């Protein structure tokens, strides 16, 4: 199994996403809602939560692929149910809904420290030939 948890893209590191569990069936992560990730209402910006879910889904789908394959997000849909306050840690859990030869579909649940569901995202990832990392 590949270890994309150790090879996160620059944007994930910039936002501060941490991968805490990486298995073929489930990927978990954490994102501390720092003040710069907040919106004007003092809660996590929707875009920060979307970034978190996109990263977890991308990490999860990449993890079970051979080295010569990669993925790109072709479609994503998110529903928001409750806000995560600035200062709190949002937790994410991604599970596969479909793992085909051409596409993978992952569902990511974001929860707050009190256990309440904050958002659910579903991503469709297209499997493509791996591109060499440009770092």
């Amino acid at each position, binding site marked *: 199994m590949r270890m994309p948890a150790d090879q996160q893209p620059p944007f994930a590191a910039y936002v501060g996403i941490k991968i805490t569990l990486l298995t073929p069936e489930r990927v978990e992560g954490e994102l501390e809602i720092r003040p710069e*990730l907040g919106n004007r209402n003092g809660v996590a*910006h*929707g*875009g920060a939560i979307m970034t978190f879910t996109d*990263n977890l889904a991308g990490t999860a789908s990449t993890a079970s692929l051979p080295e010569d394959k*990669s993925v790109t997000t072709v479609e*994503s849909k998110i529903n*928001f149910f409750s806000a995560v306050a600035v200062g709190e840690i949002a937790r994410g859990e991604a599970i596969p809904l479909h793992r085909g030869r051409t596409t993978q579909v992952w569902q990511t649940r974001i929860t707050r420290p009190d256990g309440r569901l904050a958002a659910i995202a579903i991503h469709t990832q297209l499997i493509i030939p791996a*591109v060499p990392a*440009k770092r």
Partner: protein
Amino acid sequence: MAIKTDGSVDPAHLKRFEENPHRFFRLIGARMTYISKDRLEAELPVHEEIVNRGGNLHGGAFMAFADHIGGAATIVNLPPGARTTTIESKSNFFAPVMGGDVAKAECTPLHRGRTTMVWQTRITRGDGKLVAIVTQTQMVLMKAE
């Protein structure tokens, strides 16, 4: 930074977007270039902190960019005292934006109701190709009586 406008938006909103752009919007490096009640435009230079492993604009950065624009477009259409929150968003991605290029977004309304507003944001890259469309639903939160 001066933002172009057709004069349809509340000057207080324009002043806030110009002088106190949102912290998260600044974090990703985006800037608003045009604002009216019917259309909002913005730019996002693809710098090295917001790319994916392939060196292209990260999908999450696209979504963050569009989400913020849809929120701002809603704010300038709200009745006095009301606020907004994103309740749903859907993105389709068509092509990558390479590092060093500038993504441009244009946001227009699909629906502006009393309870919800639905906005569509088209994102293009430097060569003019359509790279993503984001459709999002904003809930209108009225101040408690």
